[in-house]
């Protein structure tokens, strides 16, 4: 009797272990496969001119995506300039001022909802708000769309990280006579700084790979991003256009662009991990 029970428990243990391992294996296989394809096909498309020259017409050899790389960096930076301060402030409100208030609860709920909003919705929203009213696509509109996606991520991580700072630290600073804003800036934010930085970098990594919001806002362009007020070249929409094109050289370039953006996001993630490990 006893032995049979033990055998059944052991069998159940094995079954669960195998199912879990299989699930993990499926996940890792597809991830490695995607990475392998991107690296093996993308790396061969890279060359010096890829990073320095404008795109060549289809069929012609040479050329590069320097304009799209620069455009993506600029649009992401613009999104960061808009989204990070707003997100940090919203996070401070949630963690420091809004706790237990009706409005704070509402803001927290909206932040969570916004995190789940499909990115294409953010793109369409900015399209109707900015692109339609101004009458043209622009890099600014692209930056605003990405900033809308960054804001809830930064706000949520900021609020969570600041909530981890013990109240005794706030009380100690207040007890020395520090006004509330100094306590928040000099003590709480400083204690949580590696967490705040992580949130910012994660948000940057997340939005720099977005295509849908840019399709309706920044669109794309074969030229250098001279001015942000017109259609602006960027990597993700370029990948979308080139991959769908019938030209082999453009498909090659799309692989190269995929590699560059994957490597960029990976670099940001690694930087985040490094910062976290060094400061905690």
């Amino acid at each position, binding site marked *: 009797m006893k032995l049979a029970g033990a055998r059944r428990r052991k069998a159940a243990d094995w079954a669960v272990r195998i199912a879990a391992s299989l699930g993990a294996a499926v996940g890792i296989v597809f991830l490695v496969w995607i990475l392998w394809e991107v690296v093996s096909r993308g790396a061969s498309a890279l060359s010096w001119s890829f990073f320095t020259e404008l795109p060549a017409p289809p069929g012609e050899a040479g050329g590069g995506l320097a304009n799209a790389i620069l455009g993506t960096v600029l649009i992401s930076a613009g999104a960061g300039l808009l989204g990070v301060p707003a997100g940090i402030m919203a996070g401070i409100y949630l963690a420091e001022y809004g706790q237990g208030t009706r409005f704070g609860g509402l803001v927290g709920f909206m932040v969570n909802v916004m995190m789940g909003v499909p990115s294409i919705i953010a793109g369409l929203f900015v399209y109707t708000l900015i692109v339609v009213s101004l009458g043209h696509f622009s890099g600014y509109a692209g930056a605003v769309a990405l900033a809308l996606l960054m804001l809830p991520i930064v706000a949520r991580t900021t609020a969570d990280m600041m909530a981890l700072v013990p109240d*005794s*630290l706030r009380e100690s600073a207040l007890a*020395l006579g520090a006004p509330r804003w100094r306590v928040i800036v000099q003590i709480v934010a*400083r204690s949580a700084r590696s967490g705040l930085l992580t949130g910012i970098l994660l948000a940057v990594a997340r939005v720099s790979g977005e295509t849908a919001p840019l399709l309706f806002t920044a669109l794309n362009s074969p030229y250098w991003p001279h001015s942000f007020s017109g259609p602006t070249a960027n990597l993700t929409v370029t990948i979308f256009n080139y991959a769908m094109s019938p030209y082999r050289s453009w498909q090659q370039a799309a692989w190269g662009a995929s590699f560059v953006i994957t490597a960029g996001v990976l670099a940001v993630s690694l930087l985040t991990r490094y910062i976290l490990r060094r400061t905690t």
Partner: protein
Amino acid sequence: MIAIETTSQAESAPPRPGPQPVESSPARGAIAVRNLDFFYGEHQVLFGNGLDIAPRKVTAIIGPSGCGKSTHIRVYNRIYELYRDQRCTGEVLLDGQNLLAPTVDLIELRRRIGMIFQTPTPFPMSVFDNVAYGLRLHYTMPRSELADRVKTALEDAALWDEVRDKLHHSGIELSGGQQQRLCIARALAVEPEVLLMDEPTSAVDPVGTAKIEELVRRLKERLTIVIVTHNMQQAARISDFTAFFLDGRIVEFGDTTELFTNPVDRKTEDYITGRFG
């Protein structure tokens, strides 16, 4: 318009002098508590507390967990106001001035009444900047004077010899006992008249505890100390007066030796002889 004027005035104002030495007489830092009730939301936790705390003496507050000891002293510097649902009624007079009046300048109040917490709370900055934090908050002074005052505060907290070579290391790298003395130095730097200590040794090892107790004995020569402790031996060792709290009420208050050897109330006797708590 008015706001702009105020700002420009503040910027052009001459540097304020640092803290002046407190005159030796008459002793300042006497606290009188009158009819203090305290509420967490609808829940009342302090009932009609009345207490007279003598200047430049150590007053211990003892009692079982949850009896309102910490809540009581958290009224003195109004730190409880950080929390929306906490409120109190009654009076707390510091040298005759009601600290609970809405007109009281909280920043100046907290310069005059320092507080040490249960767990050490070094700020995420260097040892030097920790001690200088309050000074920079309240005063404008030349760098050399700031350095002098930081050194004095660290000496007063019996920490200078241990940290003189690591002033620019993070305060978080110090040991628990050192961190707590760092917090004491930080509080002393702004020359408070009263120091509130909320179970200051509960997270500190016995050696560190002995150092902090020694410090308390020395510090009472220049300021009033109110110490909350769950450790009756500690109260007996270092305090001049003791108040025994039970369920938010002050059961007995008097001379420490008297209270421990000859308690008037039966509940005090039960508590100090270890029958409950």
